[in-house]
């Protein structure tokens, strides 16, 4: 498996889920455990570019695939991605527990659809809950990230 661009090789029990392998075996604790039933979006990661819930994803499915987590969004030198910067500039988080999932989901959205409409953002981000209810600023952050990368 390739995780955030680095090849990793590990042997795991077949019933384990991707979220646990990421957090416990690989130490990538940016992926959060929220509802554990695929509803809340805190464990959003990508596998071969597709957004999924790591809490519902058997880790064996990722055999040979490329997994992307929040830790892989910034450049290796620490420079933040346009989406991360947009969330900071627009106050796109409050308590922060949902933020890794929001960032991964927003990044997946913009790679599929670089200039989404507001309705498309709302529809795609439906599955990423924010218990602080900071949705307007999350929306604004994604709009701003899309506009920023459009200018670049």
């Amino acid at each position, binding site marked *: 498996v390739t995780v955030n661009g680095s090849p990793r090789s590990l042997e795991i029990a*077949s*019933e384990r*889920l991707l979220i646990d392998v990421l957090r416990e075996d690989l130490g990538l604790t940016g992926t959060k455990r929220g509802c554990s039933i695929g*509803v809340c979006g805190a464990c*959003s990661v990508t596998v071969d570019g597709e957004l999924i819930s790591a809490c*519902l994803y*058997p880790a064996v*499915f990722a055999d040979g695939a490329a997994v992307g987590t929040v830790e892989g969004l910034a450049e290796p030198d620490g420079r933040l991605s346009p989406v991360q910067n947009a969330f900071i500039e627009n106050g796109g988080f409050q308590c922060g527990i949902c933020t890794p999932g929001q960032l991964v*989901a927003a990044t997946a959205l913009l790679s599929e659809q670089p200039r989404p409409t507001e309705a498309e953002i709302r529809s795609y981000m439906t*599955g990423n809950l924010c218990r602080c209810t900071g949705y307007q600023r999350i929306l604004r952050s994604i709009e701003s990230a899309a506009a920023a990368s459009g200018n670049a």
Partner: protein
Amino acid sequence: VSAAYDYHHAADLDDALHLLAKYEGDAFAMAGGTSLVLMMDNGLIRPGHIVGLRGITALRGIEQGTNGRLTLRALATHRDAERSPLVRSHCPALAEAFARVATVRIRNQATVGGNLAHADPAQDPPPMLLALDGEVDIVSLSGRRTVPLDGSFFRGMFETVVADGELLTAIHVPPLPDGARATYVKFLPRTVDDYATVAVAAVLARDDDGRCTHVRIALGAAGPVAFRAHAAERALAGRPVDERAIADAADLAAEASDPIADLRGSVAYKRQMVRVWTARALRSLIPRAAVA
């Protein structure tokens, strides 16, 4: 947390069928895994063996035959189906029914075959596929059969005719009759990623005099299985589709439903919602001016 199981990666369909036969009684086939993972996590099932289907490339894809029949292979994901130009041009309401399932993440992982085999009565695709006269291919080591969804496929909550050692491999949807229009309406008073409180799929065609020449009404979250409301359909067949006929059909759909009381409402409330949403679904299929 799930109990331990052995995961067997099936290389092709034949391999999968042999693995299912070998571990018969102690094995489940896993496609996307969204439902099975939850059921194992909750201890509802404890298989010793999981036969993983995701490597079977022959079970992926969506195609349309020269006869106009649409085929969704079992491992096509919900997202594949909702974004497929073939599905959308065949029937926009079918693409919509797939798009209404949960969230993008689930739709990226969950497969169309797994959705039917899981037989959750509140799921979105089953009523739409029932209303479109869908049928499924079921394959085992001893052969292949094609089963219509209406009447025989769903046997109960989480139960289908797919037996141990069998796999659902494809869903077929015939072309719609000339002039037919289809809709899928999902009543969601809580959140957009919720299960339906009730859902109605309807297909309707009328002749030049406004008489119903073809009708299908199928209900979701209105009983232990998704089902066709045959009596409601008979109330419309051959009649002018006016407010009285629509009200009759809606009453019969409500009468046919057998919902459970849960946090989305009581039995009486859900029956009333079946009545309301059946009427709305049918009305949406005829131009406003044509409703007397």
